[in-house]
Structures are given as C-alpha cells and as structure tokens.
C-alpha cells in the first residue's frame, strides 16, 4: 500500500510550524460541522426507524474527508458530490433545514419531493450539484462543467466525489480520461471507505489501492489519510492549486472507513468483520481532530458540550420544521420535465387534478405499497 499523506498524529499533534491556513474560528467550524453531520446522522436514523422518513445514509467515519475537502474550496467552486457528502454541504453553510426538507421530500425541498432522501441539490451559497442515484454518472458532468470554466478563462475548480466502488463505473473511466486529455480543472476525490455496500476492496479491483488508477490516464494522484481532516484539506488545496494554474486534474484517494451501514436499509454485521470495525473505531476522525483542537487550546469539555447541544438542537429544529412543512403540490409531478409543460403533460395533469378532486385527498395516503 502506497504511504499516505498525514498531518495530524494520532495524539492530535502536527509537525512544528505546520500552518493549515485556517483561523481558530474556522478550525472550530470544521469540528462543529463534523458534530453537525453526526447529529444529522443520529436523528435521521431515529426518524427512519420510527417511520418519519423513509431512508437515510450514515456518514460516520467519513466526516474528516468531507469537511477537510470542503474547507479547501471557494464558494465559486463547484462540488459534484456523492450521496455520502453531507459534510461538504454543511461546511459551506447550506442550511440544515434545507437538507431536512429533502429528507422529508416536502414542498420546500429543492428537488420538490421528487427524489429519495439524501439526494440533495443546491446552487447557493455554493454549487452542490444535484445528486443522482446511478453511480459515477456525475463524474463526466464535473469534467464538462470544468471544460466550460476553463474555456471562459475562469479559475473555478470542480471537485467530484465518489466511492471506491465508483471507480468501477463507466463514468469514472470516461471522466478521468477526458479530464486528463483536456487538462480540465477537476479534483477527483475517491473516498475509499472500504466497502461498496457489501463488496470489499479486493472484490472491487485487483489494484493496490485506488489512487494508482490515475496512472491509466496520465493523471497525478495522491493518497491521503481520510480520517485526518487537515491532510485531506492539504491534498485538495494542492490539487485545486494545480487546477487553477491550468495544470489539469488530480486524483486523490482518501483512505477512510464506513463505520455505519451502507444505508438505513443495510445490515453491515452480515459482511463487515467485527475486528475490522473495532480497529477503525479507534481511528475515529472526529476524536482525532478533537485532540488536535485540544493541543491548540481550542477545545474544552465546555466547548464540547455546547457544540453537541447546539448541533443536536439545530438538527432537531430543522427536522421539526421540515416535518411540519406541507407536501409538494400535484403539479410538481408534471413541471420541470421540460422548461415548458407540453400539451400531453398538461392533459395528464388536468386528469390527475380532476381525479384527486373527485376522490378527495383522503385516498392519497402514503405507504399504500408493500415492502
């Protein structure tokens, strides 16, 4: 295994004179964001179990990669995320309630309740690209968007995030190849979290890690300790720098571990060895960063208690508001298929409006379908 870029030692220390380029406030913001992701995870899981939402994706273990990467980007950059990148959105100040609107698929959801939970889409305050379920399809999108930025002479960076499993997708192959040929300003962030649902690395590919796949495309690559927030930040900063200078794309493999199930529908105990999980729990990225803050004198039990209370409260309030928000209107079934609603859709819409009037919304209860 190629050795990894590391900045924060297990005990939280960094090399003398190392400068992460983050103010104390920003460092604390990073920590708070990770706690916010955990709060979001925990409350979402509870809500899913109690049937208040249908589905969620746990982020436990990946927080440092998400937040470290996000901290290296500007608001003018684009993020082409996977469905396991909550922290990137939260770091850049996308309101928790906006994300909860999506979890509930309500009328205020930017996706208008059309997508499953965790399929976020935002344009403000940063472009957090609409998440698609198919794996890897967003990778060439980042490359095309980057080509456009480059053609206009902007110094915008396009970061696309995907998993270890995502490297087997066709979008990875075409996206990496096109980006390298075009010297497009893209950062390819592969989050190697050990599994693709139940498929472990050695069944996913025979390569020694994932970063080396960049060799196939003549693209520079680095491997970083994904549980080390500052290491991930540094790797993305360097890659973004190259991109802005017109030197082309970089692939970063962030080695981390999915400490939860793949989703709320998954039972990882069926395939994740207990010892492996325990081993990684010792490397918890949040605890690692906490120690770093402590060494810097930015952490105390008070701070901890306040942040945890805050973040839990923030998520609770957001969940409550989202849950109390009305469902999308019937018209959302027919709008946004095209810029204008064509006649056949107008007719189909009128049919449905009329039908639901005749039957009264009563019949429009959810969960009618089994499974």
């Amino acid at each position: 295994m190629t050795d990894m870029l590391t900045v924060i030692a297990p005990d939280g220390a960094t090399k003398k004179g190392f400068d992460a380029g983050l103010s104390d406030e920003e460092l604390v913001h990073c920590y708070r964001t990770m706690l916010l992701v955990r709060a979001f995870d925990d409350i979402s899981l509870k809500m899913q179990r109690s049937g208040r939402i249908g589905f969620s994706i746990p982020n436990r273990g990946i927080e440092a990669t998400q937040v470290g990467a996000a901290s290296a980007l500007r608001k003018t950059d684009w993020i082409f995320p996977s469905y396991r990148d909550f922290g990137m959105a939260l770091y850049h100040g996308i309101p928790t309630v906006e994300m909860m609107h999506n979890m509930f698929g309500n009328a205020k959801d930017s996706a208008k309740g059309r997508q499953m939970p965790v399929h976020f889409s935002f344009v403000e305050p940063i472009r957090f690209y609409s998440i698609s379920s198919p794996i890897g399809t967003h990778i060439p999108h980042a490359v095309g968007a980057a080509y456009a930025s480059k053609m206009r002479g902007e110094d915008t960076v396009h970061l696309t995030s995907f998993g270890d499993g995502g490297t087997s997708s066709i979008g990875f192959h075409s996206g990496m190849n096109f980006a390298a040929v075009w010297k497009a300003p893209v950062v390819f962030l592969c989050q190697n979290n050990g599994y693709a649902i139940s498929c472990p690395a050695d069944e996913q590919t025979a390569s020694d890690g994932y970063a080396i796949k960049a060799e196939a495309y003549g693209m520079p690559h680095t491997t970083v300790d994904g549980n080390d927030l500052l290491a991930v930040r540094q790797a993305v900063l360097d890659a973004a720098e190259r991109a802005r200078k017109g030197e082309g794309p970089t692939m970063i493999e962030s080695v981390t571990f999915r400490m939860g199930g793949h989703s709320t529908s998954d039972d990882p105990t069926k395939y994740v060895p207990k010892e492996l999980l325990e081993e990684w729990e010792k490397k918890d990225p949040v605890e690692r960063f906490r120690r770093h803050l402590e060494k810097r004198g930015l952490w105390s039990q008070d701070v901890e208690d306040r942040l945890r209370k805050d973040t839990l409260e923030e998520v609770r309030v957001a969940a409550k508001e989202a849950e109390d928000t009305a469902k999308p209107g019937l018209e959302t079934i027919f709008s946004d298929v095209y810029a204008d609603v064509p006649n056949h859709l107008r007719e189909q819409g009128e049919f449905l409006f009329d039908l639901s009037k005749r039957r009264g919304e009563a019949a429009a209860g959810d969960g009618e379908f089994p499974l």
Partner: protein
Amino acid sequence: MANLTLIQALNDGLKTAMANDDSVVVFGEDVGPKGGVFLATEGLTNEFGEQRCFDTPLSEDGIVGTAVGMAMNGLRPVAEIQFQDFIFPAFDQIVSEAAKLRYRSGGQYTAPMVIRTPYGGGIRGGLYHSQSGEAYFAHTAGLKVVIPSTPRDAKGLLLASIQDPDPVLFLEPKALYRSVKGEVPEGEFTVDLSTLRTVREGRDVTVFCYGAMVPVVEKAAAQAEEQRGIKSLVVDLRTLLPLDEEGVLEAAKQTGRVVVVHEAPRFCGYGAEISALIAENCIEYMEAPVKRVTGFDTPFPNTLEHHYLPDDRRVLDAIEEVYNF
C-alpha cells in the same frame, strides 16, 4: 407445494436451477454473502460456493458483458442487476450484443443467459429506484422479456428462462416481493414462456396487465363486479417478448372492450403495442376504443408516487369507461 412469497419463490427457483445444473452461475452486486439487497440470492454462496454465486465489481456493463462470454462458453449465467434503474450502463451489452449475437454469427455463437432485475414503484424509491423500463427492451429483437406476478410464475418462469436458449431479461415486480404469497411446486418445474395467464374470467371487459399491476387490476375487477356487475377478463401477459399475439387478440375479441394497464409512462410504452395490435387486427370486434391506464409521461416522483402509479380506482374508472362507451 410450499406457500411462499414471490422473493422466496425466486430464491427457491435459483436453488433448484443450481442444484440440477452445475453450469448455472449467479452473480452481480452484493448477491454473495449479503444475499442481494432484496435477499433473492440469500444462502446461495453458502450452498454452492463462491465460484457459483459471487459479488462483482460495480459495473453493470461488466456483469452483462461477462455473462455473455460465460454463456457462449457453456455456462448458464444468471446475472442480477440491483435495480432495473441501473441497467442502462449495460444497455449496449444487452441490445447490441446479447440480443444480436446468434443472428450476427449465423448461430455459431449464442447467449443463453438470464438477467434478473427488480423493477417498478411502490417502495418510495424516487426517480432511480422505481422505473419500469420494459418498453426499452421489448423493442429489441433477439431478446426475451419476462415479468412474473405470482410466486408460482416467478419460479416457473425463472426456471424456463434459465433453460431457454436465448437471452432473457427477467423483470421482477419489487412491490410484490413480500406482499404476495402462494402455492409453489417444489423442485423442478417450468411455466412456458410466451403463454398468457388468465387471472379472472369475464365477458364484459378485457384487461391486460403484468407484474405489480396485476393485483391492482384484480382489486379493480372485483370492485367492478361487486359495484357495477361488470365482469372483467383479466389477462396477465407474463412474457412481453415474444408476445402471444394470437392469445391477446383472442382475449380482446371475447369482450370487444379493452383496458391495458402498466406503471411505465404512456408515450411509446408497452401498452401502445397492445393497443395498436388490437385496433389493427380486430377492429370489427371492438365495441369501444382501447383504453390505456399508465404512469404519467414524467420521471418517477417520490413523495407523490401514489398519485403517479395507476391504482384500483383509476383502473375501475377505465373499466367503466370502456364498458359504458
């Protein structure tokens, strides 16, 4: 006979096929130790070993492409695509390769294989865990397209598909995986492909359907009879390609009034072919124009999916409409 859910019947079918024929191999994403996200392949790796039931990398193109290679070299691959929504990366391998191999090689190379995949709505899956793509495949010569709606058919059609000399796309109505239960013969047994199933007899209106819409139509047909005394002949198409066209025309002629039901969008959907076939071939028997009850011509929504999916009320309205035409 055992009383099984549809997913149990599929699992039973796979075990039966693997036990009776060493050349049957099952693979796909998460089908091994995890047993598949819907547990259709549960226990297979344990029982038959990692060589015959195993996980693959995350590539539908690779799954179908390697299945074609296995099939031409003596194996009987049964590949799983985790959701039909994710089959499109393999579209080229299915449409350009599996379906055309026998033809382009003059029969020298063939692809006897099965691609199993859960399709359809009802699980709050939104755009990408709910689609019904049968029409994309039913337009493809060289391919067979099968959709069961009962546990018995699920096993019998699956075994027939595995033994079939041509590639079969086996679409499984995920909404019915655990919601329907029924008697299923034990051990080896098959249900012939390209045969229709009469779900309910009736002389007033003929309703064609398949997959997860069958129970919905049954419910509507029962209501039509109770509430209005309209007797519906309900036909489960089961094999969409090659279709038993004679059987379809026969069933249409019996009542002269036809409703076609599917979840997929209407425009260029499978129902268009059924509607066209009937209108073109038995116009003199028709008392009313064919009525299609389908999903809307939009992507599949999430929160409002129960408004998108045809339900018994919409089917009942259609039955009455053609009856009263």
